[in-house]
């Protein structure tokens, strides 16, 4: 599953990033790399998604979010 499949308030672990070098580098600048814990905060219909990672809040477009593969912790 990807970040996009999480529900608001749900926590997960980043597994991998299915994107090119460029997207990968942009994501890693914001701490979004494998083995990091994230939490989906908000996912409004017309907007982007907001996640919490390492104590900071990051917003990312849904297209980018769909490239981040995660697994929920109770799996």
């Amino acid at each position, binding site marked *: 599953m990807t970040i996009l499949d999480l529900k608001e308030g749900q926590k997960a672990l980043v597994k991998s990033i299915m994107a090119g*070098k460029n997207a990968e580098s942009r994501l890693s600048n914001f701490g979004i790399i494998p083995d990091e814990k994230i939490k989906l905060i908000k996912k*409004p219909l*017309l907007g982007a998604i907001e996640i919490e990672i390492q104590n900071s809040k990051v917003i990312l477009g849904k297209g980018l979010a769909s490239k981040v593969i995660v697994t929920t912790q109770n799996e």
Partner: protein
Amino acid sequence: MNKHHSINVAIVGRANSGKSVLFNTLTSSHEHTGNWEGKTIKGIRKSIRFRDKKIIISDLPGVQTIDIFPNKFKREHKILMNSDIVLNVIDSTNPQRGLMFTLQLIELKKPTIIVLNMADIAKQKGIKINKKLLEEITGCPVIETVATKKEGMTELLKKILKLKSNLKLPKKIAYSQDIEDKINKITNHIKDIKHNLSPRFISIKLLENNANNDFSTLNQKTKQVVENIIKNLEKRFGYSSQILIASERLHKATEITNKVLTVQNVHEKGWKKKLEKMTSHKIWGYLIMIFGLGGLFGFTFKIGNYISLLFDKASSFLHSYWNLYLGVSSASQLGWSALESMIAIFQITIPYIIPFYIILYILEDLGYLSRVAFLTDSFMRKLGVQGKSCIPMMLGLGCNVPACLNCRIMESKKERFLTILLTTLVPCSAVMVVVMGLVGKYMGLGWVLFLYLLDLIVIILTGVVSSKIIKGKKTHLIMEMPEYKMPHLKTILTLTWYRVKEFLLIAAPLVILSGVIIKLLEIFNWLGLISSILSPITVKWLGLPSITGILLILGILRKELILITLASLLGTTNFSLVLSHTQMITLSVVTMFYIPCIATISALKQELGWKKTLYIIIFEISLAIILAGTVSRILSIIKI
């Protein structure tokens, strides 16, 4: 200046850490600040004197990484590399993020002072950072500051002098053994290459192997060695080397943060959390956005109208005295119309732009613009742009010129062009003055909102259509969501004052100039002639009085001039004498779209070149003529 006597200091760090506020405080400048990432779009330098030393301070745009051969920010890169001392500004409320950047400066081996800014907010949150320990770990002097309150500035300047007289390089911070081995291997290989950067920095960048760096100058053998090392590493860990390095930095930064940071649970201010929840809520968020923006104009309208009416009274009072003492000869009328054009600035512009800018700056400093970007991202993608585009567009409500420059935050060429195009369609405060002064004053707020809605629809349609026509890369939104901050009132008032002052300095001479032009034209009997050139459009198609032709020409200089010049021609701001309601709406629609003002045109030329600027101008003129004519026809059918 003798190079040895001046100290070059570069302010760097992640976006939104308070670099520009620090720069403004140190150098008494008024550079743009606000609570969202990416405001500073190019490096700025200014020199100051402190204890007989000349210190040249440069404020640089916020970045997350330092590249070796950046394709963006080339000049800024040079400033950083040529600086004697680097001030690394870190947001104390989230040092881990800042330290990820600091680690790169340490790799770079630049004498660095770590500036833990926003100490006030950190304190409110019960965050304490052990400065001494951080100093020990990094080898860099550490200082706490509150840039907005000028706290820590003298101490910072003292530290700069001290570091300069006793240059101390940062300590090496070692990553995990595996990575260090590879770094060393590469360092050995590039030993002979002459470069002004630290070999360790270059090695790590080579290892990182990211798309922003261009290593084509490297010799074939070294390239091969590096490639092999990377392949080897990636095979072992199963991740790209780029992710491996990022993860090393992240873990180091976290490790250091855990060592130096203690958090006491203090009661945090509830309003921020509540507001954050509400404004990004899937339903409330949108309602607040719509009503918030509506409120922005409603409030401006109410206050502006109130003050404007006071000025009206004062002006007609003055006019009657003028007539009483000077008579109603044509000379006295000429004098009055000159005076009236100056009074008109205060009657119809200042009352609206002051409250408007105050609120816009409050929204910006609070951190609301990023929420708009967040709430609208998916929607904006349908217009060929992304959520971030909303930020320059919102700024465009104030003035299109800085807004177009701020479009540099867009990453792809296509998105930048489209964002600029849409931004020029946003009605700026000068257009607002015309709309409020005509439609608002004589027809009410409802019609003002109608016009803004019409503008919004035009923007949406333009985006949808042109995104289909213009080819190019799309990028995805990613940025830090800033926490709300209590807007800093003094900064906001100062920025507003600077806006007003700038306006008066530029507008007043233009008002006089256009007054003179009009009078000269009148004397030589050319006024009717020039106006009649445009009359096939203005009179026949748009149904406006023929005099509007000359007004629209002058309006290219500044759109407020349309109304101010009309006032000086009439000798009063009672525009209902010459314009019917339908004509007021038509003129407003033309003003909204017909051409970007001259300052915007020159900004466009700088950002896009002549060809694209010309496209935009032609597009907007045709748009204005077609739209205003249509609106005028519909309105005369339904007879408002």
